[in-house]
């Protein structure tokens, strides 16, 4: 059985330089690129118009943007190449949620590693060493997990603006570069993927490591919990996706590689029901996978330029336009600077 997807729309040249990260909300899509501005496109309109541009968000460019998976869509976080983290909130004039996005607070590099509150103050917390790389927001939009190049994972409480947890994966700052992070939807678990090929799972309530998962020997660039929290997917340079059972901490299998030489996978995303996995790779191909059988259901590519980020759009009950199907949608972006939107081709 394979699935059919059609290119629904392409936003050409959405950014002046290549796009490194995408993050959807129920009504819009954040995109971050090598240039300093962030862009937000509306996903409730079939032409995906530009809704807002945030100029000068990150002077050296932005490599990660995240929103809460399965969340309300009022909070977003971004990380710039200079190591600064910015948290954005969507509020209208009266302070109610919804409306324009504005900066809520910023963490400068020197304050990232600290355990104590460090709002814009260049504090010297412990573990200032590594630079911040990947981020993930909890579903209730109250916690932010971020990883650093020295293998640490910090969890921040956004309301109190303090770091409530730091997980170390190597002897004080000697850990392998943590390139990917994810929080389970129930907020209980944090997963990190590292350059060494290791995947770690931490229990946030207990504050400790629960699983150390091997299986992929090469750098991990993306980790993702399934929406139900039963499975954890990890992928990277090996070009295949490894799946782990969260309950038992076991490696349950890998996806079948597409060729002798599968390209590096840079991005992974589960759809809302947990039935399908999306992957984006450096050869420009976005693939839809069946995780239970490990087979690829569909492959699409616009160019052979690298794809840095792929995301499902949260399921919307309404069709985009009268007469259009309500099929599920996903998007992909990368070196071509365009954002491509695909929609499932349903019979009706």
């Amino acid at each position, binding site marked *: 059985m394979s699935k059919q997807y059609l290119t629904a729309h392409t936003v050409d040249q959405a950014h002046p330089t290549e796009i490194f990260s995408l993050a959807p909300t129920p009504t819009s899509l954040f995109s971050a690129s090598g240039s300093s501005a962030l862009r937000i496109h509306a996903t409730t309109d079939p032409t995906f118009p530009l809704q807002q541009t945030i100029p000068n968000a990150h002077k*050296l460019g932005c490599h990660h943007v995240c929103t809460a998976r399965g969340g309300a869509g009022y909070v977003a976080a971004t990380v710039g190449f200079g190591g600064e983290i910015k948290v954005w909130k969507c509020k209208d004039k009266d302070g109610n949620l919804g409306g324009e996005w504005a900066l809520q607070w910023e963490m400068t590099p020197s304050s990232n590693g600290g355990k104590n509150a460090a709002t814009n103050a260049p504090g010297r917390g412990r573990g200032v060493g590594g630079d911040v790389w990947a981020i993930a927001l909890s579903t209730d939009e109250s916690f932010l997990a971020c990883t650093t190049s020295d293998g640490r994972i910090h969890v921040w409480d956004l309301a109190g603006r303090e770091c409530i947890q730091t997980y170390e994966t190597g002897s004080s700052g000697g850990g392998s570069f943590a390139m990917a992070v994810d929080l389970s939807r129930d907020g209980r678990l944090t997963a990190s993927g590292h350059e060494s090929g290791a995947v770690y799972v931490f229990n946030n309530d*207990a504050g400790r490591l*629960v699983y150390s998962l091997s299986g992929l020997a090469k750098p991990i660039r993306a980790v993702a919990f399934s929406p139900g929290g039963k499975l954890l997917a990890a992928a990277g340079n090996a070009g295949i996706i490894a799946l782990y059972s969260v309950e038992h901490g076991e490696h349950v299998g*890998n996806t079948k590689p597409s060729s002798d030489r599968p390209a590096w996978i840079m991005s992974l995303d589960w759809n809302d029901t947990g039935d399908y996995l999306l992957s984006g790779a450096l050869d420009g191909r976005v693939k839809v996978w069946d995780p239970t059988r490990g087979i690829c259901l569909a492959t699409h590519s616009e160019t052979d330029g690298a794809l840095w980020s792929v995301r499902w759009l949260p399921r919307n009950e309404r069709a985009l336009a009268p007469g259009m199907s309500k099929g599920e949608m996903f998007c992909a972006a990368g070196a071509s600077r365009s954002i491509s939107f695909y929609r499932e081709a349903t019979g009706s």
Partner: protein
Amino acid sequence: MPLPSSKRRQRPISGPKSQVQGSARTRVLRRRQPLPHSPHIPAPSSLVSIPPQGSHDGALSQIESLLESILDAVINGADLVIPYQTARSSPGVSPAASGAGGARQMTTEVVKFPGRNIQEVKRFDALLRILELSHEALLTGNLITKRNIYYQNTELFRSQSAVNDMVDNLAFTLGVGRGDLNIVAAARGLIAGPIDVMMRNGATVHYGHGLSGGNGNLIPPINSVDKVDFHNTRWLLVIEKEATFRTLANSGYSSTSRAGHGILVTAKGFPDLVTRRFLSTLHSVRPQLNVFALVDFDPHGVSILRTFQYGSQRLDHEENVTLPHLKWLGIRSLDIMSRSSIIMSHSLQDPQSGDSQTSQEFSSQGSLAYPLGSSDDERPAKRPKYNYPRDSNESVAPLTRDDRKKAVSVMKQICGERGFDSAGLEQMQELQRMLMLNVKAEIQTVDNFGDIADWLDERLSV
């Protein structure tokens, strides 16, 4: 390999060349034939004069008037004074932007004798000695190296880097370039290629296709050069690594390149002033000579590229040392990403994949797992040791922490300039990719068992 003749800029290539191409397809031993000279098309003159540079007279007269004022002070019993500004640039200021000393902080100082303390006395002594040596050098017309100065009196000068600093600061104070004081660094850069350099003292150096022994390939101080005959050369390639330079020079690449005759240069790593001034002058007297840079794909390589292009902060006061038209030939991210031997290729090295991949089902496989148990039998979670994965191609490696810091600092430098140009944008994008992939690659990445000629042919011909 098809000859990109449609992309040739000026001179159509005649018969002998296509014969060479035919034999190229069947060649096995990779013995390259030197290309014949192009046929008789009236070409602009290949012999160019180097205009005298700098202000030697200015330096000489300033030194003499300074020495005179010191003599006067001795006679009158006043304090002896040497003006001495140490130029300090604030980090992140673009070299190009601070020409008139705009954003730089300068400590306007004088060094006095008798001094406030023993250090000042020693410094006065050292500076006076340097002035004396420079004066002598200017009068005789000889050049003196900084190394030579240091060895005149190692106890007085304390260290080579102290001498270097003093010489540069003196030059800056007097408003001249270091070369105007007839003080040079020991020659470091190398050059190979079919050009002739006529020196002001009458000697002619023919650099040749290969490497001659001894000092035959050293880049001379540009002030000693009177004329240069470029002959047929169309391109100039600056190479970061000496080893790559030597391999290419030894194989005579300057004359066997499919892109035409060219010049190979290396500064053996971070560019020195003599090499930079030489290249800058060559390009200004012959702008039609395309200049390219070949550096490693890492933050240090980009930093070297930018130093050739825009200069260094410390020596910002030096003139005629920049090469903004220098094009970045490689190594670029596309060299890593498009080569199937590197990013795309992985034999399935997953040790647990086994043969379960033949079926479409998963096999349940064990893994190192430390399940969360009750507090009784709980073990402290072990943190396993990791190995940095070694890619199949040894020339590609992960970035280190310092590499990443360096990349960010170079990016800040690029962004510091008001509205960076297309070269700056290109460098930003490559650095971002470097950080995203977390890899760096050496020049050796694109070679074919040590032979980089094919790759260069392709790139230089565009």
